[in-house]
């Protein structure tokens, strides 16, 4: 039997976004309210299964009375707040943040970012050809997933997923400081010398494609990865008694990846090495 927890009913609080009244349950963030009101606020480091880290600052909005802009993803709505989710000041910071990111890392596999760059009229090239970039080679040190930190925006999601929020393996951390900060295992060693158990839960939350399953990485390199030709099939993992829900991503009748729904009450999108990467036997047609 599945019991869906309903929780204690939460009181509604009222405030305004762009002059319109918003009513949201207590504890909601400004982002929750904006989304409920159908407003598109760009987000990168926010994740539906993780506590907000508020590192990227692309989601900033204006709150009357606040000295600076505030991150919509992590600031809780308060009664009577007056929020502006657009306007020149907000658009300016979002544009600069997008330009700073696009001029320093490879965003080619970050979903939606091309649209935002256009919407905010961002011109990352204006920092000139000499602008410092991350420029890192992809690290292919194991058979299951690839780390391409030239695409990393340092959103901390992988670290949080690997740490106490989900996996409790603590295999990765941010190392270094400032522009030199990178995601790394201890001593920046290969993954195979670390505490990593290859659950792939970091890959699942990575918003940029900096982390990708080896299969996807290889297919992209070969030019055969094509999401428009992929279908999704829901099933249950056959390996152990937990019975995690799996979504098989299939292209040309081949499984090319496995995920789990983020709103699944058992997995919250997380899996283990077997469920995530152990699908080859399914297609073993003998």
């Amino acid at each position, binding site marked *: 039997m599945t019991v869906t927890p309903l929780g204690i009913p939460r009181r509604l609080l009222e405030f305004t976004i762009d002059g319109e009244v918003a009513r949201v349950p207590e504890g909601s963030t400004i982002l929750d309210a904006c989304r409920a009101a159908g407003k598109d606020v760009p987000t990168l480091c926010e994740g539906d299964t993780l506590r907000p880290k508020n590192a990227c600052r692309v989601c900033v909005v204006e709150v009357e009375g606040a000295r600076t802009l505030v991150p919509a993803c992590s600031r809780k709505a308060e009664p009577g707040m007056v929020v502006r989710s657009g306007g020149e000041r907000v658009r300016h910071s979002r544009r*600069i943040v997008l330009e*700073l990111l696009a001029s320093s890392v490879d965003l080619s596999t970050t979903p939606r970012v091309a649209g935002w760059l256009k919407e905010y009229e961002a011109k990352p090239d204006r920092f000139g050809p000499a602008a410092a970039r991350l420029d890192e080679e992809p690290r292919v040190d194991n058979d299951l997933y690839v780390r391409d930190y030239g695409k990393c925006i340092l959103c901390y999601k992988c670290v949080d997923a690997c740490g106490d929020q989900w996996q409790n393996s603590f295999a990765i*951390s941010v190392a270094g400081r400032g522009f030199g900060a990178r995601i790394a295992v201890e001593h920046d060693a290969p993954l195979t010398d670390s505490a990593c158990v290859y659950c792939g839960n970091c890959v699942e939350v990575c918003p940029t494609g900096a982390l990708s399953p080896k299969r996807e990485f290889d297919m992209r390199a070969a030019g055969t990865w094509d999401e428009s030709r992929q279908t999704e099939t829901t099933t249950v993992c056959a390996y152990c008694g937990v019975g995690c829900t799996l979504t098989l991503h299939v292209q040309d009748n081949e499984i090319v990846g496995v995920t789990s729904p983020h709103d699944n009450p058992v997995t919250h999108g997380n899996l283990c090495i077997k469920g995530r990467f152990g699908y080859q036997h399914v297609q073993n047609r003998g």
Partner: protein
Amino acid sequence: MDLHFGDSKPTDEERAAVDALLGPPESSWEGADRTDADLRWARGGRAARDRRDLLLPGLHAVNDRIGWISEGALGYLCRRLTVPPAEAYGVATFYAMFSVEPRPATVLHVCTDLACTAAGAAGLCAGVEKGAGPGVHVERSPCLGLCERAPAALAIRAGDPVRTAVAAPATVTAALLAATAPDSAPEEDPPALAVPQAGQEGLTLLRRVGVVDPASLDDYRANGGYTALRHAFALGPAGVIREVTDSGLVGRGGAAFPTGRKWQATASRPEQPHHLVCNADESEPGTFKDRVLMEGDPYSLVEAMTIAAYAIGAHRGHLYLRGEYPRALARMEHAVAQARARGFLGADVLGQGFAFDIEIRRGAGAYICGEETALFNSIEGYRGEPRSKPPFPVEQGLFGRPTVENNVETLVNVLPILTMGAPAYAAIGTERSTGPKLFCVSGSVDRPGVYELPFGATLGELLQLAGVRENLRAVLLGGAAGGFVRPDELGIPLTFEGTREAGTTLGSGVVMAFDDSVPLPELLLRIARFFRDESCGQCVPCRVGTVRQEEALHRIVARTGADAAGDVALLREVGRAMRDASICGLGQTAWNAVESAIDRLGAYR
């Protein structure tokens, strides 16, 4: 937590350094040799994890003994404290004073920051780099907090014990001597020489500097020490908070927040325990007042922290002291030990039934750790990254508990408030900026040092006192996070409201005078490099924005007018987003000084 430790083993020396801090390991789970008993039950776990806050002291222990932190040493420390090695690596690589690569045992930090650049740091650096043998690693450093004796160098030689020596003002020979023979290098100037007013009548905060023996508790008591604490016990905690509130005291660390309100907010929180943290991380370029107070009158800070803790109901205080302040550290350690031995700290302070003790924690080279929440993370053994607020420290601070964090100078002000009474204290200064204020004057003046003046004196009066030299071109107020003003603006009153009205800031009390010997664009480039180097890297506007700012300033270092206009416009746009969208004060202020130089001084015009 199922931790994975690599195969690297610590050397005997590394193990000894860690064991000297933590005691010998109890079982093979913590890195001792394996016994049969270890196979039957596991130890460590939660009890060891609760000591995560010993990670930073542990890294210091290894770095102090060996000079760098090897894989084996880090692994052993992680085993002892049940810390994931990836996280410990992330912490070790956060701090400028640590190295995870082999390097010589002696590191010579040569300051290349503003006051030292104006005093010829470039030549000093070049000479030192040429003259240093293979046994000395030369590190170009941000402000070492010795600006009154610019140019400055600090040598640290790893060993047991670690040795340090300061050369300031430094010549190439003196700096190299400090590095090669720290034990026989000449003793650095006493702190009183950093206080041109030392011994004068009418001083309040500085009155004991150069007058008392900083090692002697008896001398401190003979000069009025510990009268304020007795007043405090007579008033009771609520009474102390009332006095501090009525005095109008606001924080001297840069943010100018009313101290009484902070104390009240923490005192009234139901969660226990409450914590007191003294912020002695003093790393704002041009600031050295806290160092002079701690070196010259260390017991006053011990007494002030005791009073603050009593008022807010804290029994444990942390003093977070800048890693590059060896003499202040030694004097504070001595003072705390003396106070403890004599019953001024401990289970029953002065027989009043109040328990309080102070733990000293050393920073390790990170300006950002002076930000109040980054400082909590640093003490707790995490990377010194600021937390998002709310929640505020008074609700969830150190170890997630209600915490008061105050600057050294702020706390020391509590002593005169209690001895003279709030009304008399509030009568000093102006209505909205009460009390005496310390100013750190350096640069193009004949008598650089820490000055104490009542709030309300003008910038010109202060500079006159310090003997400002001819050809004054600009004055930097508030440090790298502050702003420049012109020589025709010396009438600005040195108060919080006066500087705000003039569109600038008092910050931490930095007043740096510049003549025309160093081109302004060079100074701006140094400020930009400081922020680029010191950004924690957490948020995009600051992590990348400070890099783009430095790049643009590089491009226009020798340009003006139309040739610079495009980049000046770019700087404004990036600066505005850094100010608006960065998480903490570092990114929010990283463009202040550059902006003021463009708008007020007409740089690049």
